[in-house]
């Protein structure tokens, strides 16, 4: 499998943590969404790896153009605002569509079973009150 550049990785991490932000409970990255994605890129999501890289590069470029800094370095409120713009099509259809896909994957990593590499120690399940008994 190919891997992301350091900047892409930092952008991914920042985006995942805006999709599922840390609060009293772990954010997406801490809970293992990155790990979930790494595993999926070696399997079901392998065909999407290139799209991921392009998306991450694209939103980083937008961040630099509009705010003069890499996406990952922006304040979280600015990151949120930028992602809202992307979601609402302000930067084109393709980015909006791909962001929705990324959201889906991040949620799978966070709320799916730990066996898929995310939801470390079932933190997401404990947060919402889903207990596996039996």
């Amino acid at each position, binding site marked *: 499998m190919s891997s992301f550049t350091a900047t892409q990785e930092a952008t991914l991490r920042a985006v995942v943590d805006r*999709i599922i932000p840390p609060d009293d409970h772990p954010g997406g990255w801490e809970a293992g969404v990155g790990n979930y994605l790494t595993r999926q890129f070696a399997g079901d999501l392998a065909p999407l790896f290139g799209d991921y890289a392009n998306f991450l590069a694209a939103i980083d470029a937008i961040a630099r153009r509009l705010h003069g800094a890499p996406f990952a370095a922006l304040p979280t409120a600015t990151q949120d605002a930028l992602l809202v713009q992307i979601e609402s099509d302000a930067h084109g259809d393709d980015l909006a569509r791909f962001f929705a896909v990324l959201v889906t994957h991040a949620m*799978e990593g966070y709320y799916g079973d730990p*066996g898929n590499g995310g939801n470390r120690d079932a933190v997401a399940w404990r947060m919402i009150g889903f207990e596996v008994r*039996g």
Partner: protein
Amino acid sequence: MSAARYDAIVVGAGAGGGVTAAILAEAGKRVLLLERGQDLTFTAIGRDHLRNQRLSQYGNNAGPDLDGHPRVAVDADGRERLVRPHEGGYQNNAAIVGGGTRVYGAQAWRFLPDDFRMATVYGVPTGSSLADWPLDYAELASHYERAEWELGVAGDGAASADLLPRERDYPMPPLPPTAQSRVLRRGADALGWATTPVPLLINSEPRDGRAACIRCQHCVGFACPVEAKNGTHNTLIPRALATGNCDLVTGATAARVATDRVGRAIGVDYFDRDETPQEVRAEVVILAAGAVETARLLLNSATTREPTGLGNGGDQVGRHLQGHAYTGVNARFAEPIYDGLGPGVSIATLRFNHGNDGIIGGGMLADEFILLPIIFQKRYLPPNLPRWGAVNKAFMREAYRYVTDVKGPTQEIPHPDGRVTLDPTVRDRWGLPVARFSGATHPETVRTATFLQDRAREWLDAAGAIQTWSTPPRPRLAAGQHQAGTCRMGDDPRTSVVDRWCRVHGHDNLFIADGSPHVTNGGVNPVLTILALAYRTAEGILRAW
């Protein structure tokens, strides 16, 4: 080399096939039971929340394999899509020993008496193929009872005795109520609606050498960790094998029914697990491959005598494909309604299955199975909730234990063009033409579904919901887990495929024992009817032998 010989070959070790194999084997017949899937253990089926028969995001846990078994789905605008087993539009049920019963939700409903005479009760809506069954509830009642007792159903017969007359109660009491069902019970009481515990093919007490349900959270779409869920894999198929008269061959995919020059079935040609073609011969052939694959088998078995497929002289094979429009309403409550006690589905009303003013048919409404968190995130968010971010996360945290839905299987009004045909170009791994879906349910189904959705909302409101949301029903082709209807039963070969004994018209020794013969599919989950009908068919085969 001469082909292996049996008295009977049963294709498909699912619900109907499991029953048929057991009844014939116990009567001393030498039976070959062919199953394309494997006999998977609990561990092999696993608990992958993204790859199971409830959420097949990237795969499934009960077959078929993702590669080599494509189908083609044609949408309303005529656009064709090649679909794999885990993708939308594939209409998957399962491919495994036990078929759907290995991982099902185990709701064990009898059809209601009026479900067998829909045309008589409601007339035939223009463009639909609504029709009566050639048999009635009374004729099936003893077979329902047999299924309930031999597989094992937990329920309370008295609670629905006015609508579903029965001679004998279920063999086990219902599972104790859940927090969710107590809240809904309150709502139904306020409305004056009668409810019933949902009858389940699940042991509420130890039975048959197997444990009672441990109320785990992974019931529907998964295998049971203690084998308290009763399917054919742990009841009838072991019974069949215990006779010594039945050979179960897994990884065996039937390719065609072999017939002789006068059209009599002489056996089945199949591919074994090493993909080697095999021919087996028998006096009787019974197809129980599920409504999609059984139709496909008949079509793929065309001969010069029957160039459009076996039993297809009336151009009926594959038509009237139906499942259930599943409509419901999601609701949030002020109090927690989740207590984590599986399987979750627990209370239902049959009040709206029939007798709804100006509506054709109706359907049962029930509460929900335990929702896997990722399913909750994908399918249960209110429409205006942000799809990501702090608010989304807070909702998950604050609402998961406060949200449920009431929904149910709307009785579909069949359309002759909702159908399975053979795709002219796409082949499976063995080079056989694959199933191609086209058409949709009749528009009346949508009207009925909309009516039921309103009743679901009424129920939830009366139970104290603080917020409800839903998506409006749309006309679709519903087959999937509740697939039925593709080889409809009837007396007239021009309008049906099998007779009232599920014998293919014009073929003395060829029978169907799955959901395909259902003329209509009821307003409840179908498996108990498939099981009951298979008992009746097997008994009929033996009587005529």
